[in-house]
């Protein structure tokens, strides 16, 4: 074997790291990753201080971002937690860009640096590069450039129109951020050069379009109303920010551009929200596998392994439901358990596995892995690969909570009758479509008061939360006219949930 032929020179041990040691670790991990066939973006490792890590936290993990008070709030929270020692900072932040940037904190021990490199720079990195969601929705080559463009553009707007004005606009956009993504349409690629070039063009064009839309109104008003029942948009629109950007009557061109920036950034983070279990599980699996491989080759000291295993165990711990530490299913634990299990099913299948997973049982695990990593998101990954063994190991059970019943009902547990239901429920739990309220743009009253109507499709009789009125105020600010929100229940009954009246036009001309 190759291993026997190579005379191993152990990697540096101890807790102090040096750039050379990091380099050596990286080289060995890269070699092991290549042996497993991981396809990655080039790696750029950056060493930062705890403060810089907090900075990075505050701007949602990105190296550049525009300024906003909410990031300051985020920063204060992190800082407080860290200063008091209530919370360790994440070991790493990794950015889905090309090259893939992995931040290592200076406080980390050498072991932790090794772990982080394996986890972020090879685990996450390969996931970013391979998974279909990331391939479709994000453009790793352009994101940093785009953020830079966004920051400069917004800074420029602040200079021109005042910080306050921009801040209010951003507040409103942030409130709708979750509904600012295209779930099905493929977005065009971002590119700084194109973005700049087309931005001005777009401004003029957009404004023209909007004016066009509204300008026709008086002409039509004279006629009888042949298509009075025709709605605009003809099909409900799920991307609220997109709709606002394109059709809000009163926004200035720069405001449309800001809406667009927020929308683009929301879109960039959309895949991450849908692949948490898979992505973290994948990265955890690989740091575990890669470092164990290096240990088998005699490259790692026992002390390294002990420290590594200790933090690995902490990361993949799943507290039981009745523990005070319980905070839902730990994505690291679930993801790691599933990927480990898939490998086991391939390498060492039982009869149960053959029954449940005839396609992959006894297969080549690397191929199965590659396929699974590329073509799934959390929801479908769980529906496809969650095995009875993992359910048993994590002792998963489903609880049905119907507010019309007095008690909770244990609908399924980890037994023969329950596997499928538990799996379906868990998969549903990761379905963004059911996790978040389903709200679409339903109609704009083109001929009347220009009011905008949203429709919320009730799911399982779940009502909307308390923040709804606030969000509607934000929407009203963007739209400039009355906005209302209707709710449609399972029987098709429509009910008006909220209405924010805003008939006063701004004093500035909207031409």
């Amino acid at each position, binding site marked *: 074997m190759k291993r026997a032929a190579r005379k191993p020179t152990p990697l540096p041990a101890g807790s102090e790291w040096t750039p050379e040691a*990091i380099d050596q670790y*990286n080289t060995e991990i890269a070699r092991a990753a290549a042996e497993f066939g991981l396809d990655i973006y*080039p*790696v*750029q*490792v*950056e*060493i930062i201080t705890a403060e*810089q890590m907090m*900075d990075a936290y505050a701007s949602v993990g990105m190296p550049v971002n525009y300024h*906003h*008070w*909410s*990031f*300051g*709030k985020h*920063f*204060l*929270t992190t800082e*407080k937690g860290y*200063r008091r020692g209530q919370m360790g900072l994440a070991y790493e932040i990794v950015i889905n860009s090309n090259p893939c940037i992995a931040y290592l904190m200076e406080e980390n021990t050498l072991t932790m640096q090794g772990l982080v490199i394996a986890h972020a720079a090879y685990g996450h990195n390969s996931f970013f590069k391979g998974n279909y969601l990331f391939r479709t929705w994000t453009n790793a080559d352009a994101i940093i450039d785009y953020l830079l463009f966004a920051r400069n553009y917004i800074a420029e707007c602040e200079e021109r129109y005042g910080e306050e004005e921009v*801040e209010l606009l951003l507040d409103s956009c*942030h*409130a709708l951020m*979750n509904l600012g993504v295209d779930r099905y349409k493929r977005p065009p690629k971002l590119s700084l050069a194109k973005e700049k070039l087309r931005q001005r063009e777009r401004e003029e064009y957009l404004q023209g379009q909007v004016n066009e839309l509204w300008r026709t109104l008086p002409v039509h008003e004279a006629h009888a109303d042949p298509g009075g029942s025709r709605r605009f948009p003809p099909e409900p629109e799920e991307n609220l920010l997109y709709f606002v950007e394109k059709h809000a009557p009163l926004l200035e061109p720069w405001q449309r551009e800001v809406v667009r920036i927020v929308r683009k950034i929301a879109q960039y983070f959309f895949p991450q929200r849908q692949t948490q279990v898979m992505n973290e599980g994948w990265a955890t699996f690989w740091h575990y596998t890669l470092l164990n491989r290096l240990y088998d080759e005699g490259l790692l000291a026992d002390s390294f392994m002990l420290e590594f295993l200790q933090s690995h165990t902490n990361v993949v711990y799943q*507290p*039981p*439901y*009745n523990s*005070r530490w*319980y905070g*839902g299913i730990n994505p690291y634990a679930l993801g790691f358990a599933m990927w480990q299990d898939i490998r086991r099913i391939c390498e060492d299948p039982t009869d149960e596995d053959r029954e449940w997973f005839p396609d992959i049982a006894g297969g080549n695990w690397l191929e199965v892995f590659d396929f699974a990593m590329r073509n799934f998101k959390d929801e479908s990954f769980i529906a496809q690969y969650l095995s009875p063994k993992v359910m048993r190991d*994590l*002792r998963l*059970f*489903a*609880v*049905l*909570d119907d*507010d019309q019943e007095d*008690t*909770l*009902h244990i*609908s399924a*547990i980890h*037994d023969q009758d329950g596997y499928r239901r538990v799996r379906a429920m868990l998969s549903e*739990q990761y379905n963004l479509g059911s996790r*978040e*309220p389903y709200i679409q743009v339903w109609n704009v009253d083109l001929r009347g008061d220009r009011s905008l109507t949203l429709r919320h499709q009730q799911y*399982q*009789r*779940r*009502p*909307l*939360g*308390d*923040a*709804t009125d606030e*969000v509607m105020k*934000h929407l009203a600010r963007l739209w400039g006219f009355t906005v209302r929100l209707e709710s449609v229940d399972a029987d098709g009954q429509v009910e008006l949930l909220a209405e924010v009246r805003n008939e006063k036009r701004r004093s500035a001309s909207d031409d």
Partner: protein
Amino acid sequence: MVRIIDRRFDSKNKSAVNRQRFMRRFRQQIRRAVSDAIQGRSIRDLDNGEQISIPARDLAEPHFQHGRGGVREQVYAGNDQFTSGDHVRRPLDGDGGGGQGKASNEGEHEDDFVFQLSREEFLDLFFDDLALPNLVRTQLARITEYKTRRAGFTADGTPANINIVRSMRGALGRRLALGAPWSARLREAQHQLDELLAAKGEHGEEIQALREEIARLRARIEGIPFIDSFDLRYNNRVKTPLPTTSAVMFCVMDVSGSMDEEKKSTAKRFFMLLYLFLTRSYEHIEVVFIRHHTVAREVNENEFFHSRESGGTVVSSALKLMHEILRERYAGGQWNIYGAQASDGDNWDNDSPLCRQLLDTDILPWCQHFAYIEITPGEPQNLWREYARLDGEHANFAMQRIRTPADIYPVFRELFKKTLV
């Protein structure tokens, strides 16, 4: 394939801007929290920032979310007792048990948002656009403290300050300079002598003459004084005026029966504000607490605020004591003296004119500022009327009435508004 970049020395505080934005946006709430925080502090407890909590709902970032209710089916981990078909009591909120624990996504965090203000931020919020009265005058005109500093060398001074190295260097230079013409001639004569000696030997008149000349020249050169009073250099020390950085603050309070706890707490907050304010301008501040009913006593802070006496009120006793302490400990101009008096306005009738007189002649002339606050919901009392006569005469005297604790801050601003300078 890998690039390792050390970014540790790159710019930090990327979030400073965001933090400022946050502070600006929630200025109102933060300010409110700051004034609440004051209540729990000792007057002199200023070395810390402050933990500020703002109701989280004020700074929520709203999103469309599901509320409670409807049908929900969730998967939990760690089953230890259930089988399918079980019915379980719905746990209470915060119970953490199965069912809809905190795993639900309502995002209803009713907790306060807590964060740490640095000391500077804390004080800035407090004093915002205030400035110390007469501060400019104190710093520019009333310079009372000096520090001696080295300032090179001078040609005269006391023997104790002679700088030997400098003096000797000067003397050496002077000797060289004064002897220069003779030295040149001496070198020349020596040269000629050497030549003659080589050419003609020991004898000859010329040689004799040269030898004499050389001896004369040497005597001349040696005759130059080794050291002259002219050479002496003295270390120079100059006195540089230092702006006074010490202040003393007198807290005078009536603790007679009519001053209840509420009034005292109002007074405390006023004193505290004054103290905070002074720390912005002075490095070192002493506080003297004087409380009085019919007699005055100097006490510590705890006693000052927390014990209560009964009986009548003679305000002048406190002012007399203040004057005494002032004379004994804080005379001599090194101290900036601030006085603050809090009372409910009750005084023995005949005493009030005396109080005015004491202030007028014995106290106000020494004070940077003296503030009188009357904490009373009712009509002004006789002390107020007497003091009112001082108001116009002394620029460094101010008086205000406080009815409720809410009045303190505005009153404080009124007392110390910038226009007073």
